[in-house]
């Protein structure tokens, strides 16, 4: 159509220039939407940490309240090792019964079955997902990557409490059992040296 531009009426010739602006505007929208899509990834992580969405437990320095709840919830523990990590990993207790507001300490046992030093990257979440907002961890081995020497055995403590505010949350009204689940992944060498911030994703 470039050769036919002269054939066009003045109306159409004028619009041809505006078309170019429109095209550029459209391209800018496309680039912007792709950028926003990528921005969604860190935003999602931040959103999960802030709200407990997708079963993301909250990380706190210390118990924030002295209040105690009236209900007792069962908190079960689940320990998994992803394929490719020659470790043994298990919870010392299957489950505990917890009154919201009470701080609880439980232990997980891990053992490196291989003849070499290995670093593992722990990921975690709670189920049902809505309980993430009320599951507050004070101390956890999962806050950092863990390295075990050949055949080393360790016991890791996890210190947590359930926020008594959960009793005011309708979504929690029918939840009387929460499962805290861990999966250990073999950390690639590069990831082991990465900063803690990049390691500490929404589920891990």
């Amino acid at each position, binding site marked *: *159509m470039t*050769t*036919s531009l*002269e*054939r*066009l*009426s003045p*109306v*159409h010739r004028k*619009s*041809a220039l*505006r*078309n170019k602006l*429109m*095209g550029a505007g*459209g*391209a800018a*929208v*496309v*680039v*912007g*939407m*792709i950028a*926003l*899509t*990528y921005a*969604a*990834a860190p935003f*999602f*992580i931040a959103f*999960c940490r802030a709200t407990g969405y*997708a*079963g993301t437990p909250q990380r706190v320095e210390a118990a924030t309240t002295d209040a105690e709840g009236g209900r007792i919830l069962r908190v079960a523990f689940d320990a998994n090792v*992803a394929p490719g990590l020659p470790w043994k990993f298990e919870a010392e207790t299957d489950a505990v019964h917890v009154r919201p507001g009470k701080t609880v300490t439980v232990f997980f046992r891990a053992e490196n079955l291989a003849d070499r030093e290995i670093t593992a*990257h722990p*990921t975690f979440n709670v*189920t*049902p*997902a*809505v309980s993430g907002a009320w599951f507050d961890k004070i101390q956890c081995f999962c806050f950092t990557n863990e390295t075990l020497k050949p055949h080393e055995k360790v016991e890791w403590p996890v210190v947590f409490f359930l926020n008594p505010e959960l009793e005011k*949350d*309708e*979504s929690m009204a029918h939840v009387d059992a929460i499962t805290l689940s861990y*999966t250990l*992944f073999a950390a*690639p060498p590069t*990831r082991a040296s990465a900063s803690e911030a*990049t*390691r*500490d*994703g*929404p*589920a*891990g």
Partner: protein
Amino acid sequence: MASVSEFTHAEAHAHDGHEDHGDHGHPTGWRRYLLSTNHKDIGTLYLIFAIIGGLVGMVLSILIRAELMTPGIQVFPVLSGILDGDGSVDAAKNLYNMFFTSHAVIMIFFMVMPAMMGGFGNWFVPIMIGAPDMAFPRMNNLSFWLLPASFMLAIISMFVEGAAGMKGFAGGWVLYPPFASTVGTPGPAADFVILSMHIAGASSILGAINFIATILNMRAPGMTMFRMPLFVWSVLVTAFLLLLSLPVLAGALTMLLTDRNFHTTFFDPAGGGDPILYQHIFWFFGHPEVYILIIPGFGIVSQIVSTFARKPIFGYAGMVYAMLAIALLGFVVWAHHMFTTGMSLNAQRYYVLATMVIAVPTGVKIFSWIATMWGGSISLRAPMLWAIGFIFVFTVGGVTGVVLANAAVDRYLHDTYYVVAHFHYTMSLGAVFSIFAGFYYWFPKMSGYLYNEAKAKIHFWLTFVGINLVFFPQHFLGFAGMPRRIVDYTNAYSLWNFVSSIGAFIAGIGTLLFLYILYDAFKLKRQAPANPWGPGATTLEWTLSSPPPFHQFLTPPPIPEEDEHDAPAAAAVGHA
């Protein structure tokens, strides 16, 4: 098509001779199509492409229905034996999963979208607004020719390794990780599907920019926004949906691609990612996408109902605002596809409510179509039959959508055949009926030939009966708990599956009849008049010859002064 091209060719010279002194040499033969910058030729290419895509997609679906006709796994072991010599039950299951995946990808990206936007949009948007062509004719060519490349990638994916030891990608068109990541599909089949959708997306994005520039800038003087035919509005709204949603799909697919090949961990928990994030991003695209598939159909049906009721559309402005409202709401309801992923009650409440609100503008549209027909001088020609069929099946699909919008009900019906029935009523019946309605409405205009009206009506009835037989019983199966995406089922589901498969074969015969109608029309070459539909057909395409000249409206056409949309029926008659 050679005869058509010769004809339009001659027409072009006959009509443009007086306006077209400098440039007689538009390309001929294969160059005319391969190098085409003409919106009508590109529209024709899109329609041919959509017919091919539709046939491939339909063959896949008929084989799926053949398998599901009776309990047990009978058809796919044989197919798998023929296709890659395996024939084991596992290979058969994988092949079945690959078939429904490919069926969806092909029907969405290589049938409905090319037919509605690429085909009818290219053909009639410039004509309806009195423009000589699209704003970017070369980009238009690129938009089309990206599609065959994309289609080839989709076909290739069916023949390379996907899941370990299996051929093709079998994880559904949604490509959820971890199945679509290297965990579930280590082979390159998933990469081919991703790249195929990337290129199809790029094609549609370019097309969308083209439509937006064309509609906003190239209207003839007097063709104000609120005097545009509703089909043009529907394409404009769809183009904005495409522009805003497809880059999001492109982003999600790129993340998935780099997760698969370059060790990023957007959706991999091992590195801090989350597969749920993929679902959010995907459905942020995916929900607008279903409106992309249906809104142009709204526009087509509006034109047809108005033409064959011989009345201006009832509530024109309401129709425009309804489309805009549906498009806007389409961006804020995505998580209703994810009710089972564990959302708080308040989040569920929001998504239930927002989703149900969409029924309001949709209801406005259905009401306005019926009100347009009310008291009109209705002639039940083939396009009108398809349009009325559309209104019926789309209403059924819309009503089941309101049922599924309830989070509590959805928990029970999620991933059952009820959902399959719901979206096929809106897509396989709704979108497809509007495409056939548009095809029979504009075929005389596009080709210059008349088709056999009686056969077109038989095609409608075969399809209407067949496809309702396919999908209505699937509501029962869904309520009874039959899960989707599984090759086999217990005997309890056998009756309605049998009925459903019979329906698929009837609809398949209807499609064969459609091909015969096309053959028949091109063989008999019965010349169509400029306006075969009478005084109800008031849009600009009916003022041109059939087929239209190679170039039209090099001088903008005069647009009548009075506002037809507000005029009573009698005043609108005669503009043609």
